[in-house]
């Protein structure tokens, strides 16, 4: 009921922590201030990796959802993975938006702007918040899984839109620095290293958290199934004498 071997998971946890500490050292001190943005650049070492990991997380959700919907590969594993990854995606999208706002205030002078990149990212956030809400609706597992899977695939349509928004529209947000249309990165040296290190650190953290969140999803689903079986059993055979102390949180309070 885990994605990773427990020992690997622990090692990964410590490694990602170490990687994040190193990122902080480079991001806050090792990397030089930008020529134009000055030290505000240092927020980019968190904002950009956060955004990319959000894409990754939603990509995992979309792929898992597709694999669940396709009958030949249908399995509860994909549904649980989709749900787990989506929660992380929402977390990192929120982080992206807030860090972007903190960066925008000193550099653009505004906390927010209604440009295509920002709007589509905010839409992305709400799409997956809706997805998470959909998953919380009490349902039979298969029904919920199918329903969520479709919502996830629709929501994922926004991801390429977010990415290409800076090319398709005139935006306040700058053009892509790394994944430019000609794939010619505009960032070099220590700054480039720090950025990629940030992506590495965030990826390690994402995988670690995904494994844990997946396990939680699996345990909770099993518990729901058990409680359902018990409830049906009671209905069929009648409530037992001297029922044990209140079964706490029947399906609710997740």
């Amino acid at each position, binding site marked *: 009921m885990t994605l990773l071997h427990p020992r690997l998971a622990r090692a990964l946890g410590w490694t990602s922590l170490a990687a994040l500490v190193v990122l902080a050292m480079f991001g806050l001190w090792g990397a030089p201030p930008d020529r134009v943005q000055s030290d505000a650049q240092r927020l980019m070492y968190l904002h950009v990796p956060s955004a990319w990991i959000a894409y990754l997380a939603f990509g995992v959700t979309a792929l898992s959802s597709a694999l669940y919907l396709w009958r030949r590969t249908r399995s509860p594993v994909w549904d649980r993975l989709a749900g787990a990854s989506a929660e992380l995606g929402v977390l990192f999208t929120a982080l992206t938006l807030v860090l972007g706002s903190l960066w925008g205030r000193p550099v653009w002078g505004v906390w927010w702007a209604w440009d295509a990149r920002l709007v589509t990212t905010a839409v992305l956030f709400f799409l997956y918040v809706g*997805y998470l809400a959909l998953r919380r609706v009490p349902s039979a597992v*298969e029904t919920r899984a199918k329903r969520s899977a*479709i919502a996830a695939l*629709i*929501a994922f349509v926004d991801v390429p839109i977010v990415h290409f928004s800076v090319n398709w529209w005139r935006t306040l947000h700058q053009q892509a620095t790394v994944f430019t249309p000609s794939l010619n990165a505009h960032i070099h040296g220590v700054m480039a290293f720090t950025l990629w290190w940030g992506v590495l650190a965030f990826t390690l953290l994402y995988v670690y958290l995904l494994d844990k969140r997946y396990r939680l999803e699996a345990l909770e689903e099993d518990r729901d199934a058990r409680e359902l079986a018990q*409830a049906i059993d009671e209905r069929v055979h009648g409530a037992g004498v001297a029922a044990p102390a209140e079964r706490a949180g*029947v399906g*609710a309070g997740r």
Partner: protein
Amino acid sequence: MIERPVESAHVAAPQALETALESRSETRRLAAAVAVELLALEALLAAGVVVLFNVALAGLAPLLLGTLAATVGLAATGTLYGVLAAGLRVRETLLPVLLLPVVAPVLLGATRAWEASINGVSGDAWPWVALLAIFAVLFTGIGMLAFGPLLEES
């Protein structure tokens, strides 16, 4: 809630979904009906706008095509999410929460297309019409693919 939500939902949901829509063709008819209703409403509103606001029409073609594409996109997503949320007790609250982020780009695009077609330069409207057309095709396509799994017996 004192009752057991997991258990009662397990019983209620599949039944509700079955009774709500029996087949794909019915769903398609529903989507078409929604589209027609929307188009009728839009025609009325357009007439109202023209009469009340004395607009100078820069481009009729982008306006009509954009409106058509936006309508198809709205009808497709509205029907899809309607089926998705069918039979759920929380449908009234959940449906708007789910639908609004999906529909927001369509509404934004349609607004821009109308802006350009009415008082602006009609050439500016075409990129937005293209975007609306892409959404229309995409959501209709996803809808057609999704209705199978959604409506099949669990």
